[in-house]
């Protein structure tokens, strides 16, 4: 099941050129661009691992592309996203976020039903991948 989080996730995966242009857009707006990765793709997992610090004072997307490539090399089976953080007053928030790498096979989510008091049912979802320990997910058993 294709994970749809952040911008453009219903589109085909962005090419590097398209990613660079999105990054250029962020930089032109004066946003700090950061690269993050995770292998726990639960929708409520908002805090992904940071790949280095957010990058300030950049003028050109080439610098970010270097980091994206390095992150891909180090985490070939993880989700990687790029964020554009707007630090200006009132916003002070991530204003752009999109996935730049996803594992080849995305097993999707399990829907679990818990019976509560009376006849109520509580639902929760759980990524199948998290059945395995961190670092072994999406790797077909290989570390």
């Amino acid at each position, binding site marked *: 099941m294709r994970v749809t989080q952040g911008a453009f996730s219903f589109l085909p995966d962005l090419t590097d050129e398209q990613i660079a242009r999105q990054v250029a857009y962020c930089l032109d707006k004066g946003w700090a661009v950061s690269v993050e990765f995770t292998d726990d793709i639960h929708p409520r997992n908002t805090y992904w691992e940071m790949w280095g610090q957010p990058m300030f004072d950049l003028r*050109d997307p*080439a610098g970010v592309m270097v980091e994206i490539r390095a992150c891909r090399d180090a985490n070939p089976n993880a989700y990687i996203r790029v964020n554009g953080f707007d630090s200006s007053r009132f916003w002070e928030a991530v204003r752009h976020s999109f996935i730049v790498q996803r594992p080849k096979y995305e097993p999707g989510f399990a829907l679990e039903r818990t019976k509560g008091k009376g006849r109520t049912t509580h639902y929760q979802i759980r990524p199948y991948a998290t059945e395995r320990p961190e670092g072994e997910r999406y790797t077909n058993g290989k570390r």
Partner: protein
Amino acid sequence: MNMDRPTAAEIIETEAQQAIDLKALRAETEIDALLEELDRDLVGLAPVKRRIREIAAFLLVTRARERMGLQSEAPTLHMAFTGNPGTGKTTVALRMASILHRLGYIRKGHLVSVTRDDLVGQFIGHTAPKTKDVLKRAMGGVLFIDEAYYLYRPENEKDYGQEAIEILLQVMENQRDDLVVILAGYKERMDTFFASNPGFRSRIAHHIDFPDYSNEELFTIAESFAREGHYRFSPAAHEALVAYIARRRAQSNFANARSIRNAFDRARLRQAQRLCETGGVVDREALQTIEAEDIRASRVFSETIS
């Protein structure tokens, strides 16, 4: 008959179609305006200006060749600026950044000026992130490394400078499209630096030497500082300035235009002091004029030439 190969007539025809008007290309890139500005704004530096014109012409022709489909490897643009302090290396680097930007060889045209401290860390594992951070900031523009020879400290083999050099070299080679590196420093020390780091020498296409300014040129520079600040020198101050330049050059720590800028700044201070002490009504003329005594009060005149 081989259909792939065009006949001579066809070649002539297509070439005629694709002829490129270099003048139009020059106009399109607005490069002439930049070069003229360079000529006008910078005093002296004739050999430097000539080299820059050569480089600009080469890059323009390379662009024209590209449009004609004549493939050649992307030109290496890394440069070394050598010369004594205050000879305009940083200023020219700034101009170079905008020239390269206009010609489309760098995407943004900004200049990131760094020294050893910005690249080399203090502890193990500190250097690589620091250097990479600087490189990332410089991408799309020009990275100007002042006094680059400090990166290499042969007397200490554990020095982290070597690590910075390796990262630099790698990026200079692999990301030639993304940034241009300009190394700057004293001529002799740069020569030893290049001799011990052959990797750098071979990756740098243009070595530009900045000559010292002559006394007349320094005087012209002082005048231009004054003009920019809406000051002027009285005739006596003129003479004092000429004498000042001659004496200052013979003294230690002479830094060409930078020394002149500092001298001018101090003369302004003394002028203000003089006006305040005199008190009373000052007219526009007095506020503008730097007198001989403002210059003659300098330490340069009291010290004996050693």
